């Protein structure tokens, strides 16, 4: 995965091979979101990496097995964020719109 290393802690009875699939799915999601993800993407957008993870896993279990659905959910959250920012900033007179 081009200089990306992942470490996953699992329980005794967990299936190691499916864990590998989980890691692989997560990288695919990051890849789709960032477009050819690399180390720097994750460093500079660490909170996004968390948000994506939180749409894929919940409380340590897989919550959504469809790549499409996960990405859709992130998209909707990002849209909502943008919408509220626009609304928010149009109310105040400090006008910059860039995220963070």
């Amino acid at each position: 995965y081009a200089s990306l290393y992942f470490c996953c802690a699992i329980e005794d009875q967990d299936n190691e091979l499916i864990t590998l699939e989980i890691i692989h799915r997560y990288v695919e999601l990051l890849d789709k979101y960032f477009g050819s993800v690399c180390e720097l993407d994750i460093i500079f957008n660490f909170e996004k990496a968390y948000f994506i993870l939180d749409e894929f896993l919940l409380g340590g279990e897989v919550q959504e097995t469809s790549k499409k659905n996960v990405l859709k959910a992130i998209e909707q959250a990002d849209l909502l964020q943008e919408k509220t920012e626009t609304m928010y900033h149009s109310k105040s007179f400090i006008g910059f719109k860039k995220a963070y």
Partner: protein
Amino acid sequence: MVAPSLKLQDLIEEIRGAKTQAQEREVIQKECAHIRASFRDGDPVHRHRQLAKLLYVHMLGYPAHFGQMECLKLIASSRFTDKRVGYLGAMLLLDERHDAHLLITNSIKNDLSQGIQPVQGLALCTLSTMGSAEMCRDLAPEVEKLLLQPSPYVRKKAILTAVHMIRKVPELSSVFLPPCVHLLHERHHGILLGTITLITELCERSPAALKHFRKVVPQLVQILRTLVTTGYSTEHSISGVSDPFLQVQILRLLRILGRNHEESSETMNDLLAQVATNTDTSRNAGNAVLFETVLTIMDIHSAAGLRVLAVNILGRFLLNSDRNIRYVALTSLLRLVQSDHSAVQRHRPTVVDCLQETDASLSRRALELSLALVNSSNVRAMMQELQAFLESCPPDLRADCASGILLAAERFAPTKRWHIDTILHVLTTAGTHVRDDAVANLTQLIGGAQELHAYSVRRLYNALAEDISQQPLVQVAAWCIGEYGDLLLEGNCEEIEPLQVDEEEVLALLEKVLQSHMSLPATRGYALTALMKLSTRLQGDNNRIRQVVSIYRSCLDVELQQRAVEYDTLFRKYDHMRAAILEKMPLVERDGPQADEEAKQSKEAAQLSEAAPAPTESQASQLLDLLDLLDRASGDAQHPPPLDPSPGGALVYLLDLPCAPPPPAPIPDLKVFEREGVQLNLSFIRPPENPALLLITITATNSSEGDVTNFICQAAVPKSLQLQLQAPSGNTVPARGGLPITQLFRILNPNKAPLRLKLRLTYNHFHQSVQEIFEVNNLPVESWQ
């Protein structure tokens, strides 16, 4: 007044730009000061940005606890950006061990009920990540409501939150159990997956729930069957396998439901066979499903054919080029080797090949599995492989390999000689890695194999001559040479090429061991004792030995010094007892007394017959007469008491531990016979460790002008005592005070019966054959009381 704060990405860049640790610390400390100031001032606009920066710094390992309250404020804000960062902060910074975390319970409650899906998602996510037991109890009703919501997005999250809640508060199972069966009818994969996870959690926690959910086995089977038989679906397939995550989860639940339950297991059998045979194994996803299937098959009551199929799948995994798959195969086979031994045996060659793996975790497991597969029919082949592995294996595996080989050899050795050879090989290859008791085991083994004494001592001598650095080997070799030195010098042994060893070589070797800086103190102790023993086994004079012993009297090592002093004293003052004390050791006790008793009895029988050399008929009958005489005389009708298993033990203590040779018995010596210058003396020893034992040494001296030859001494005691005659030191006493003959009698008298002793002497003197039979009078009372 307030400087515009750094954007998150700018801060990250600045931190990464720092060239040293100190520089990084400086940047971070400066920024944290700004952040703290900003928090104090309560700037709502940039709060989320400040917290985001703080979270980054926290990830690097710096303290960030002062951000905890800000998380609360951000969560309570209505702005989605704030909530996103605030909830993330809560998951990273708030900790259920500190009470502060409870403060977000109210915010979560509000967010759960206000109906904006992304916000509800955030709240549920946070709750299932860091929710403590109290929070879970408070919010259970809200989550329960969300289980019934129409939106799959929220429902799937609510289900998994319920899983977390049950883990924290098991009593909530009753709340979340009822909706499960209904939820199983959903078609949304996410909901289905969550439900199955929830059911799995419920069943693992409560046998009642387990029973309840057995009734859904047919439904689960159906769901899985549909998954497997439907074709490719873009949304959920991975390399041709339909939703492997869901498949694996279902298989896991089936495993739990089918365990120990005949009926459920039967319902699943066909499906499991189908999955096992039809899954595409070209990529990891398929193998993951196959692996879970195998685990399920092995855990439930499956048909025998299915079990064999499962083990064969694992065997195939062993040949897979992917290291991860070989790893899971080895770990699983290790778990199965006890229960399905014959099925796993079939894959033995593949397992043995895995010993050559370069990866350490693989070779370790291959080693464990190989050792578990050794049985009496394959032991020779397996040992060969394992010994080859021992020679080339990485150092951290050596100890385990060596002890594994030794254990297996002990359990399955086809012959004693093979066993000794194997241990010898392990000691020479990996001597420093064997466990401490290997030395004791080997000496005990050799001691017990009388027919192999000559062979063992010869092989050990050769090994020692080549290399004196491997301590366990040196210790065993020294012990053997000491014990069986006479056999070593005899020169012929059928199983090995004849080797001419002369006394000087043997002594030189032992001295080399003594002086070598590589020898441990314990090893040197062994060598010194061995030298001492050789003083009675070798024919030559003992000057060299006496010299060595005498040198070590001033050795700095206290143990060696003590031994040397005692041995030296033995030479000087108690020379008549030397032969007795340094005689061959009886078999050292190991397992129960039972095995030992038989060994002792056979040994004693052998020695009794030794002590009556080539008896003619008349002599034998006369000896029996002797015994009868005594029996009738004593009128004691007791049966001989059972063998005390520890007389050998007493002698062990004498020879191997730092205790003084038996203290000079307060029992005075007794002169029992004299005729024409030939005298017979008895000396008595009662070892304090064993009150039932009496050691009598007879010493025959000759002050006459003629030699005494063919000297034979026989003895008899009452039936209630037991007598053992050791081999005499010789059968000639040269004239004019030549070297006396000594012989040791061992008498067991546990009942403290009065000691009576009858002796029969035969010898040639002045060209006449002499025979004397007499009972010893005036035996000191202390010898038997």
